[in-house]
């Protein structure tokens, strides 16, 4: 098994508008653990002592008094290595001498204990290249200076809830491991769970993806495209897979999508329920036309099989790409939801097709056409739009 799902998000944050509204299930669960939030141990790194003092006061007022302040990346790493207890959250400046915050973020992610810890970049660097580098290095959120002190408190609260999600997920993992020893469960990974995907180019977590999109819209950095993919027969695949089998299938699909998106700058995220979403920059809309066929061919070339050796048929559809620039409202996830809805609609259409007119025959047709340059272009209708 190449990967093991370490992060289990179930009914995680429902992020409307400013991304701060938590799902009812999570909210209710968190209410009962409210006292734990105040115990979150934070490490803040900034070479400016006035900013550090400001962070200490703002974050303290938000209910997180346990904050350690350091002024450089080297000092941060030393503190992490020598801390008797684990930090729960990191606040990093980007522009620092010697080791910048992005490099520090990358180093922190190398510690197994901090693979999923929230890392908030708090920086005056508002250019997309810095935002992209930060999320690529593993940042969970990005706050630009000058910041609103109340909003910073809210964002740290959101990070605290993420910490609790991880804690709950770890508890659940232990319980599942124990159960697995006792009873034979077919698939302990829930269909809706976010599966951690490491080592696939451009892939970031679901929450990081949403924060990334929000950061772009906050800064008015439009001109990008969001496109969602849905595995139409994900329930069937899930029902016939073991936990690790299912996780590896999701990772393989992510790899196939990532490989075929490489012609543009992009981030990709798995949202659970067989749903992937990508944000692509500097891409011509027409290039999306052949994408679903190409990705499906990559998946088919992987010759995926179930644990019992039976052939796995993955029916992936792509929704209509949504241009972020079409939305005037800032600080919303509206384009994301529109893209996701489109992919779901495409998946529903595919499910309604008769079996003998199904996906495999479509792929064969498209494969043949791509092999023969004289053949006409693959149309959107054929790809399940």
């Amino acid at each position, binding site marked *: 098994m190449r990967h093991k799902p370490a992060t289990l998000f179930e009914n995680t944050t429902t992020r409307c508008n400013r991304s701060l509204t938590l799902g009812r299930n999570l909210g209710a669960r968190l209410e009962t653990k409210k006292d734990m939030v105040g115990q979150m141990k934070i490490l803040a790194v900034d070479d400016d002592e006035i900013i550090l003092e400001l962070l200490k006061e703002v974050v303290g007022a938000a209910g997180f008094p346990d904050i350690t302040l350091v002024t450089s990346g080297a000092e941060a790493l030393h503190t992490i290595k020598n801390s008797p207890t684990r930090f729960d959250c990191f606040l990093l400046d980007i*522009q620092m001498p010697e080791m910048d915050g992005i490099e520090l973020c990358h180093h922190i992610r190398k510690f197994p204990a901090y693979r999923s810890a929230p890392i908030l970049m708090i920086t005056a660097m508002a250019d997309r290249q810095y935002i992209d580098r930060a999320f690529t290095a593993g940042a969970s959120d990005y706050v630009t*200076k*000058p910041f609103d*002190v109340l909003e910073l408190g809210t964002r740290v609260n959101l990070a605290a809830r993420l910490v609790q999600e991880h804690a709950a997920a770890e508890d659940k993992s232990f319980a599942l491991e124990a159960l697995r020893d006792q009873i034979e469960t077919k698939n302990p990974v829930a269909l809706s769970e976010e599966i951690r995907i490491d080592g696939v180019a451009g892939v970031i977590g679901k929450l990081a993806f949403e924060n990334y999109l929000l950061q772009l819209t906050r800064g008015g950095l439009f001109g990008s495209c969001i496109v969602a993919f849905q595995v139409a027969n994900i329930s069937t695949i899930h029902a016939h897979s073991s936990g690790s089998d299912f996780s590896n299938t999701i990772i393989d699909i992510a790899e196939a999508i990532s490989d075929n998106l490489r012609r543009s700058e992009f981030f990709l995220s798995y949202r659970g329920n067989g749903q992937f979403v990508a944000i692509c920059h500097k891409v011509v809309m027409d290039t999306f036309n052949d994408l679903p066929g190409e990705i499906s061919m990559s998946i088919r070339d992987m010759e995926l099989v179930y644990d019992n050796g039976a052939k796995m048929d993955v029916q992936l559809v792509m929704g209509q790409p949504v241009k972020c620039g079409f939305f005037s409202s800032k600080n919303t996830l509206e384009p994301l939801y529109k893209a996701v809805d489109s992919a779901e609609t495409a998946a529903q259409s595919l499910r309604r097709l008769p079996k003998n007119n199904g996906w495999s025959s479509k792929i064969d047709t498209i494969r043949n056409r791509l092999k023969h340059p004289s053949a006409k272009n693959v149309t959107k209708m054929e790809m399940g739009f």
Partner: protein
Amino acid sequence: MNPALSDKLLEIRGKFVSSLPEREERLSALHAKLTEGTCTANDMDELRFIVHKIHGLAGTLGFNALGSFAANLETDVNAAIEKGGYSSALCDGVTSLIGHVQDAINT
């Protein structure tokens, strides 16, 4: 905002203002080098660093005009560093920033 945090923010704002004369002094020295045409790559980096810090702090602590001006000047300094040269407009920008810093000190 709770009163205790408000008081603390005022205190931090005071510290920021206290730090401005030193930043102003450095900016003036760098401005002189820009005017003389003796500004080195290290000096440009230092200029970027000072402007960046003012950009990050000023707006958060309520000095909006100073913060916005520093943000724009930071873009110009970055462009100059990338280009490997600077124009008289950059010198004028630093002069104006020094003016904004003095305004903040006097406020």
